[in-house]
């Protein structure tokens, strides 16, 4: 068993994929923190679905599977979806929730229409475009990991660079505006970063599950600290570990899909944090409640004795 694990850890493909999903987890943990704190967790879900037609149209235009160009298409579609969602939910009576659902499903429908058209087209190679729906981490190549690392580093640098602006904007957009930070620019930058993170994950984790990677680590991290900087670091670490562990577990036996396994690992961290966080976890809360209740019942009893 141990030999097998050592063998696995030394396996080149495993190293590549684990590093890729690890980076991805780290990145989405960090970027997802902003989305979670802004209460826009589900935006990621809508945007990932919305990216599908972008990939399809890009493929139709260039007729080959050039990853960077496909991702560019996905990005344009994602940004368009963001725009539609924001206009719908802010300028009219439409609720954010309805806007998200509508964009999610109609863009995804369009994506399927285009993918089907591509598959029906004998000239086009199938190109495994449907892999984007569920993701295929095992197909990750070294250059894919390089792409994630390079783009990811740029995003992380942006986070450091605009730390102050993002922090104020996430906490209180109106206040940020009074300080003279353009909320439009900050918001556009933030949503672009979220879209890019999602798109980097499409190939390995897939359209449907990437949002979990964006939400999970930051929700888990939130339970351990009240400081934004620390929360972001913890979220990044949890994301990284989840990516590596998920890949590891799925490599242990045949037919364990990587993306869903990573999601299960992330969820594990989330539930551990929700239950066992010493400050505000469910258990800590429960014991504090019991303690208060005991003190409280004592008071009540003395009250009733006083009455009688």
């Amino acid at each position, binding site marked *: 068993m141990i030999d097998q694990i050592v063998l696995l850890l030394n396996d080149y493909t495993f190293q590549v994929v684990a590093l890729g999903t690890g980076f991805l987890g780290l990145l989405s943990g960090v970027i997802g923190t902003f989305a*979670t704190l802004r*209460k826009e*967790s*589900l935006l*990621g*879900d809508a945007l990932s*679905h919305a990216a599908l037609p972008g990939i399809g149209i890009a493929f139709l235009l260039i007729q080959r599977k050039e990853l960077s160009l496909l991702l560019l298409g996905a990005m344009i579609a994602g940004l368009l979806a963001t725009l*539609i969602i924001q*206009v*719908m939910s802010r*300028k*009219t*009576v*439409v*609720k954010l*929730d*309805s806007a*998200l*659902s*509508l*964009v*999610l*499903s*109609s*863009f*995804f*429908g*369009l994506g*399927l*229409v285009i993918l*089907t*058209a591509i598959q*029906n087209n004998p000239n086009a190679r199938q190109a495994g475009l449907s892999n984007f*729906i*569920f993701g295929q981490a095992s197909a990750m190549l070294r250059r894919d990991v390089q792409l994630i690392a390079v783009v990811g580093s740029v995003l992380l640098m942006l986070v450091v660079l605009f730390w102050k602006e993002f922090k104020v904007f996430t906490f209180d957009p109106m206040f940020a505006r009074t300080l003279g930070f353009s909320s439009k620019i900050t918001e556009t930058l933030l949503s672009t970063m979220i879209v890019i993170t999602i798109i980097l994950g499409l190939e390995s984790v897939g359209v*449907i*599950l990437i*949002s*979990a990677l*964006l*939400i*999970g680590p930051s*929700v888990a991290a*939130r*339970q351990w600290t009240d400081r934004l900087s620390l929360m972001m670091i913890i979220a990044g670490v949890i994301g990284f570990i989840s990516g590596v562990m998920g890949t590891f577990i799925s490599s242990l036996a045949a*037919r*364990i*899909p990587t*993306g*869903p*396994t990573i*999601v*299960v690992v992330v*969820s594990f961290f*989330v539930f551990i944090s*929700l239950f066992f*966080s010493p400050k*505000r976890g*469910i258990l800590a*809360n429960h014991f504090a409640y019991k303690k208060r209740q005991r003190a409280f019942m004592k008071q009540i009893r003395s009250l009733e004795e006083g009455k009688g």
Partner: protein
Amino acid sequence: MSMITQITMVAVVVAVTCALPGVFLVLRGTTMVSDAITHTVLLGIVLAFFITQDLRSPWLMIGATLVGVGTVWAIEALQQTKLLSNDAAIGIIFPLFFSIAIILITRYAGNVHLDVDAVLMGEVAFAPFRRFVFMGMDLGPRALWTMLVILILNSLFIFLFYKELKLTTFDAAFAAAVGFSPVLVHYGLMTLVSLTAVGAYDSVGSILVVGFMVGPPLAAYLLTDRLYIMIALSIVLAIVNSVVGVQLAFALDTTIAGMIATVTGFTTLLIFVLSPKKGLIKASLNRRRELKKIDRQIKQAQKS
């Protein structure tokens, strides 16, 4: 009956069945919960299949519906801890349930004759091949009958509890005070949403069900301020979208469910921009007028 007629009939029935509970989902702002349900019923389908080993079993539908209702319960339990925001709770629960379902299907792919792609993306085009044969008589596509039964259930629920749905959606506190439990009505509605999602999965696919539930009611909401007109308009729009969608899909030789979802998104966006009551153009005109009014008031105040 020709193929396209049968497919159109199935598509129309599915679309109307989804639009009915969708009206109240849109009004309550809980459409993303229904998105979660449409994903997690897959887990129900898989688990129930392990037990019954029969994709046609009614137990499969019941099991999957229960998992859908369980999803709502799990999301609300997480929300009640107040440790994470409401939408994050949705975003944690459904990928987890869904992932477990995918792992189970992939792991036991040899034993499960379940096609994940079909569950998620569905294909109405196959509906006419799966017949409903009763006492030796061919009664048409099976999906048509399944969805008709669910359509009747949904209509009956909304007809009988119209007053209760309206009241609990508009003012839950008042509803509770006069003796109508909002929780009971909520779970009743969510049970039907789950059942609808389960019933629709093999013709429409679970992801697109959300579009069928949100699109027509949202467009109708933008066109009227009467609840019963909103319901009627939703039905009309659901029918129009699915008929146009089927025609276009045949013309372009592509996925029918995907095409209907695309058409739904398109018509809803169109109505969103153009609606004379609450559309985008109208809203921005209103805002401009308000601003001008304020400007005038400020100028007048400065003069005097």
